[in-house]
């Protein structure tokens, strides 16, 4: 990384210049620096609304970058050790979809673990690719899916030698990383591209003692949620590409669905965040790691909770663990993760990232302070004292192996009928069902609806999970193929 060059922030500098020039706007947006929308101006402030501008000569154009956006993307690529980088303005969802659409065409197979984000499945609905799942183990103590075992990856690769790509979570929402370097080697040996979902892994590029990053492991594409650990604005993201990918083609794929009015607020936030990460990332994430480790030890001291960390590492299905993640297993105090999540919000004014059946995840980042950690720990202790219940066994039905009957695109575009869940048993799903967060599918288009899956959905609902994805907003009915 060229640290001198990284001190620049081309989009940021161009926007400052624009502000100084006091250009009279006879272009969009129509709020004209906020004057046309005084309430919005008052709420967001002149500094913010005043730079909500459109593409113009001095600010370049995200659809075809040739000046400041291009320069910013070059710096981005350099900061992340990639061959090329693309600023994304429709979330990491758009980056994930661009990865899949760049390498998968109608009928192509893609290998992936089941605990992928729904954006991957949706990309397959768009392109007609066929998912081939690599089974992942569920850690029976804490009920979460681990990473992919190298032996399983190899077995599935051998069974599907024509697959075009393998998709890897690096790390999972909970912080678990697979042996990425080895998966890259196996994939490349067979001519497969390796796509890495780093929605929860921006910081891997800027830390010691953290799992290896996609680009460092030699992956071909990586989707980076800069707005999560990187500090940029919500919805901004980055797509990285390695040596063997043609950036011109990826740009065309991105432009298929990308807005032609990309937000400069999002882009400048990426530019500034990249500079900050390049110059101070190491130091910042060391602090984040220290805070998370402190929280882990304090929470484990309370007793009853299990804040897990590097001890999960087994060299295979948990090849590495991202210590910046603060995931806590709550079932030993007789409460589900969702129950603790709700209590923290309603009783203690603490909003955490998510709660699932057995765990909660508190997101620790460069914006945290130790006193906030003390509040979280204090609240967890108080919850244990006030709400502790008899210990319940964990429903270990997570990650029921799906039975894929049709490919997602065929299933999604088939004639469908909406049925109550129970009546849908034995039919083929035409839509996705998931708990959000984390947004990992329980059922995807093309899969057989089984009794076991319906039971799991009902159980999740009863425990307070937010079920989404179906046309029925309550998720009591599901679209199946006629």
């Amino acid at each position, binding site marked *: 990384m060229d640290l001198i060059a990284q001190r620049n922030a081309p989009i940021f500098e161009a926007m400052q210049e624009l502000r100084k020039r006091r250009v009279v706007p006879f272009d969009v947006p129509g709020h004209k620096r906020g004057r046309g929308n005084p309430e919005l101006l008052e709420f967001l402030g002149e500094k913010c609304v005043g730079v909500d501008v459109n593409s113009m000569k001095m600010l370049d154009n995200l659809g075809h970058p040739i000046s400041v956006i291009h320069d910013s993307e070059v710096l981005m690529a350099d900061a992340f050790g990639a061959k090329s980088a693309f600023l994304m303005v429709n979330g990491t969802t758009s980056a994930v979809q661009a990865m899949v659409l760049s390498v998968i065409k109608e009928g192509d197979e893609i290998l992936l673990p089941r605990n992928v984000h729904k954006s991957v499945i949706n990309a397959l609905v768009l392109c007609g690719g066929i998912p081939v799942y690599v089974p992942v183990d569920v850690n029976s103590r804490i009920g979460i899916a681990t990473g992919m075992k190298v032996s399983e990856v190899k077995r599935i690769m051998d069974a599907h030698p024509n697959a075009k790509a393998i998709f890897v979570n690096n790390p999972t929402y909970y912080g678990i990383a697979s042996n990425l370097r080895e998966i890259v080697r196996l994939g490349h040996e067979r001519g497969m591209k390796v796509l890495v979902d780093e929605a929860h892994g921006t910081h891997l590029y800027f830390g010691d003692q953290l799992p290896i990053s996609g680009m460092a492991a030699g992956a071909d594409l990586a989707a980076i949620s800069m707005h999560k650990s990187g500090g940029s604005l919500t919805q901004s993201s980055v797509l990285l590409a390695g040596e063997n990918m043609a950036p011109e083609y990826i740009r065309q794929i991105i432009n298929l669905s990308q807005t032609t009015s990309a937000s400069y607020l999002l882009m400048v936030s990426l530019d500034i965040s990249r500079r900050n990460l390049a110059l101070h990332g190491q130091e910042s994430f060391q602090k984040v790691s220290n805070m998370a480790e402190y929280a882990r030890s*304090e929470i484990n001291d309370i007793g009853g909770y299990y804040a897990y960390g590097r001890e999960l590492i087994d060299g295979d299905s948990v090849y590495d663990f991202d210590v910046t993640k603060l995931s806590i297993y709550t079932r030993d105090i007789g409460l589900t993760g969702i129950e603790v999540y709700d209590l923290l919000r309603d009783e203690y004014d603490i909003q955490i990232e998510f709660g699932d059946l057995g765990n909660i995840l508190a997101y620790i980042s460069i914006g945290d302070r*130790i006193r906030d950690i*003390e*509040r979280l720990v*204090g609240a967890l202790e108080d919850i244990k004292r*006030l709400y502790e219940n008899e210990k319940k066994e964990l429903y270990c039905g997570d990650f029921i192996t799906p039975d894929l009957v049709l490919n997602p695109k065929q299933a999604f575009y088939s004639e469908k009928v909406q049925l109550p869940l129970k009546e849908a048993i034995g039919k083929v799903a035409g839509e996705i069902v998931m708990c959000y967060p984390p947004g990992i599918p329980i059922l995807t288009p093309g899969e057989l609806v089984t009794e076991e899956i319906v039971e799991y959905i009902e159980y999740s609902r009863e425990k307070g999970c937010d079920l989404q994805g179906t046309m029925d907003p309550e998720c009591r009915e599901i679209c199946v193929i006629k």
Partner: protein
Amino acid sequence: MDIWYSQMDTDNVKTSIRIDKQLFSEHSDYQRIDVFQSKEFGKMIALDGEIIFSEADEFIYNEMVVHVPMAVHKHVKDVLIIGGGDGGVAKTLIQYPEIESIDVVEPDEMFIEVSKKFFPETAKGFDDDRVNIINMDGLRYLRRCKDKYDLIINDSTDPFGHTEGLFTKEFYGNCYHALHDDGIMVYQHGSPFYDEDEAAFRAMHRKAFRSFPISRVYQASIPTCPAGYWMFGFASKKYHPLKDFNPDKWNARNIKTWYYTTHLHLGAFMLPKYVEDILNEEENRG
């Protein structure tokens, strides 16, 4: 030269005090600490820009958080002060011979050092053998305490600064846990007058009311506080601040005071109607 310190009570109201000179200004790991010399209030210390202590009116505050619970509780042996880096509360407590230990939990070492340097008279509370200073976050310290104290005094004043954790439900829960079965907790209840402080005032009472069987509020006039009006919370597991109040026993101690009297004790719990209304509303909220 004309130097004025201004404290913004609200966006539209400020209290200004003429400053003779600024004696100290530094950022500690927790907050900005300033010491001023003023004509009217003597030396003052401000944390993150808010006066928390002045030589002229500190006696009101210290006497009210100490003597009120001490005249109610039957036998205080172990006291915990959360915050209290200036030493004023400890100084007032050491007048009671039956107290065996006073733990002061103040995370900010610089605050203590500054108090010792500029306010040696007040900070001499720290010199008593019964006083132990513990440099630790209050919430963190409390997590490890169970059935340990007769009296807890929360000396932190700002529900929005670095001490915000000391105004949360978990804090009251942790205090409850740290007290003996007849323990009392006294805390800063802020000022209810300005709209922007009212929400915090309500939230505090709601949390204390739900955590303790007895929870009352009492008042004092303190010139450097917003609107010159300040409230304290009295949360207790067993003793009622008026029904279990023993004026004769307290008067027999012959402790010299400038603000507190046993008459004033009774009066302090008699609140203006609008404050009573606020408290009732929070108590009746589901």
